[in-house]
């Protein structure tokens, strides 16, 4: 206790003593600089050239100034800004494109997406089942009697009313997905009460146009997208 108080008084005394001396030192410094300026009579700026003698001490930056015409410096700046714009435009386009390409279908999927069938080998009144996108597709070469039968039905009264001409592009070729609309079994061709398809799972009867006539299925057999590029070929997909 006594020691600490003693040390603190000592410190205080030191501070009191030091302060005036340091002040005196600063004052002497200032005096000395003043004397030096007076002896030289003017402040020599390192930037001014010798011949210029202005009363304003403005630094001379002419050493750093561009020797080229101002327009070319301006064009250079704009060129750099434009190049940055060019690079960012290309980069943004590439980024967006990569994301979009990533989302599109790959080549193996596209290769399986379409199926081409030669129709010359399918005789009249016969069914052909082909696989398309993992699902069976029924193709039937219908006879004229079958076409007449499909058209003669009053389709307005059916469960899923649809005219035969809405389900076929050419009346002699019936193309539809071979998946029962009830629970997805594959119906059996040329059977059932209506001369078309019959689903063995739960007993749905489809007629010669693939329309549901009897049983639990709610909808007609689905018709995929297809086209006839020429007389004897069919492309599904």
């Amino acid at each position, binding site marked *: 206790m006594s020691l600490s108080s003693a040390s603190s008084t000592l410190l205080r005394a030191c501070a009191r003593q030091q302060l005036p001396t340091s002040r005196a030192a600063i004052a002497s410094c200032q005096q000395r600089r003043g004397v030096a300026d007076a002896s030289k009579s003017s402040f020599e700026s390192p930037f001014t050239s010798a011949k210029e003698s202005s009363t304003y001490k403005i630094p001379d930056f002419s050493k750093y100034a561009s020797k080229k015409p101002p327009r*070319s410096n301006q*064009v250079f700046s*704009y060129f750099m800004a434009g190049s940055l714009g060019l690079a960012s435009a290309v980069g943004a386009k590439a980024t967006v494109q990569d994301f979009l390409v990533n989302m599109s279908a790959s080549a193996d999927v596209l290769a399986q997406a379409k199926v081409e069938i030669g129709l010359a080998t399918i005789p009249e009144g016969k069914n052909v089942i082909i696989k398309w996108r993992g699902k069976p597709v029924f193709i039937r070469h219908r006879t004229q009697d079958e076409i007449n039968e499909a058209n003669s039905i009053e389709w307005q009264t059916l469960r899923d009313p649809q005219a035969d001409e809405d389900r076929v592009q050419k009346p002699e070729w019936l193309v539809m997905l071979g998946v029962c609309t009830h629970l997805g079994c594959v119906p059996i061709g040329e059977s059932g009460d209506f001369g078309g398809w019959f689903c063995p799972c739960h007993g749905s009867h489809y007629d010669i146009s693939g329309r549901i006539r009897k049983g639990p299925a709610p909808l007609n057999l689905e018709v995929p997208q297809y086209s006839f590029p020429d007389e004897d070929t069919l492309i599904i997909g």
Partner: protein
Amino acid sequence: MAGAIASAIYQGLIRRNAVFLTAIFSSAFAFEIAYDSASNRIWDAMNRGRQWKDIKYQYMVKDEEDDE
């Protein structure tokens, strides 16, 4: 001389912002084509003889022989 070229570029290309932006985007388009084709060419040169398009002819010829 350099000043004349610079001022010609400025007057023709930079002075109107629409012209400047059009120039930027059209040159971006051209740059992309050039960059892509150049990098494809470098890639093909580095992988010469290893790609399907380089060895395709062998199998194509074989197929034709099998058909005959």
